[in-house]
């Protein structure tokens, strides 16, 4: 019984990890790296979290957690409230609908799937943003964010795989 307690704590810790990583990703995007006047746009790290866990273990990243992460990003960044929550949840729903196809595919296919998802999210952000601000938004920064997010996916995927392994061990 006593030996099980640390295991329970370890299990609970690892089960919270996907949501925590997404939240840390949102906080990292706020660090003043000086990208604000460069052509670089910080990747939407939480989107990589949503994609990976929606395919591999959706129970560890329930919709309520995604909603909170999206809202946190909206409030922290000072942008339209509900935008990122809406975008992440739509992305989550889209991936869940294709989960049977994507599950156990080789990494190259998964990366390709993520690129498609990033493009869809980019278009969605552009549409919703243009509607919100009542003007046609500049496509450049959105396209760059799609690119940067797609490029960091392999690195983030490695981290998530390691977390998934640790969760399996703890379970």
């Amino acid at each position, binding site marked *: 019984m006593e030996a099980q307690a640390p295991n329970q704590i370890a299990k609970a810790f690892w089960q919270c990890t996907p949501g925590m990583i997404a939240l840390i990703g949102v906080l990292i995007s*706020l660090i003043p*790296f000086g990208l*604000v006047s460069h052509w670089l746009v910080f990747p939407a790290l939480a989107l990589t979290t949503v994609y990976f866990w929606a395919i591999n273990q959706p129970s560890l990243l329930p919709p309520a957690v995604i909603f909170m992460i999206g809202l946190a990003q909206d409030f922290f960044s000072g942008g339209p409230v509900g935008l990122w929550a809406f975008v992440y949840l739509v992305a989550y729903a889209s991936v869940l609908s294709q989960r049977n196809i994507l599950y156990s595919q080789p990494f190259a296919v998964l990366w390709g799937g993520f690129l498609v998802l990033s493009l869809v999210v980019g278009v969605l952000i552009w549409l*919703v943003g243009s509607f*919100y601000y009542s003007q046609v*938004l500049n496509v450049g920064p959105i396209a760059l964010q799609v690119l940067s997010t797609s490029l960091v996916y392999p690195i983030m995927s490695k981290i998530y795989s390691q977390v998934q392994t640790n969760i399996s061990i703890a379970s």
Partner: protein
Amino acid sequence: MTLLAFLIFVSAVLLFIGRADPTAFEKSRLWVLDGIAPVLETVSKPVMSAIDYIGRADDLVTLYEENDRLREENLQLQDWREATIRLEQKLERYQALLNVQIDPKMDFVTGRVIAETGGPFLRTFVVNLGRDQSIENGYAVIDSSGLIGRVVTAGKEASRILLLTDLNSRVPVFVEPEHVRAILSGDNRNSPFLEHLPKNYRPQVGSRVVTSGDGGLLPPGLPIGMVTQQQPGGQFRVALFSNLSQTDFVRVVQYEFPKVSTDASGPQPEGRDQEGAAKSETLSSSTSSGAATQAADSSLRNDLVE
């Protein structure tokens, strides 16, 4: 799945509410900003130190060239200093002569950038200054080179700055030397553009752009940038004097515009010292003396030509 659909619906409703009433989430934003500010401050410090360290290593490479350039610049600045002092003295004399009371009282508070939002359609900074330091919404924010934006959300200990390059930024400006009025608008590109220029007016490349103070939004005369080549779409963009990617410390300009008094004694600028107030006469008397104004104007022009 039902919960997922419900949350998507809730997010969409939040978006609609925010669009219909931009102030709907103002209190929540303030609350979140105050809550997250200590975390941002803690997280940003080591990162800023690391960036600063890398920057210093870069500086070492160009140390000699930089030293020579600064010596030369220093000589030029000494000449400029003398000229500025002379002009300042003349300006003070003429302002006293004309009873000019247009400049707001300005104070500065210096703070550090603790967060930035460089997402697809936002250009904002968060600084570690808030209402505790008497910061209010609308105050201008400058760095060592010029205006960078204005305060849009003043929390208790942190504030959000809307940068000039942001999509929502609109600042009334003068294009010098003609003193032509325009609006400087951001569109998330690195250089904001000039709007509402007079018809058939084409600003010269290199013309300075400064705040006009129109609408009582920002104090007049704050340097912003220089006009660049006309863009293919016909827009004139302004290259900012400030390098936003290197901005770490900023100054918030605290100022009070003179209030128009309904009193018979005329307008008295708020917050001015007793001596200044004692010197001031009514604006109507100074504007009625047209001949004196013209004489002073032409004299000032002659001084500037000299």
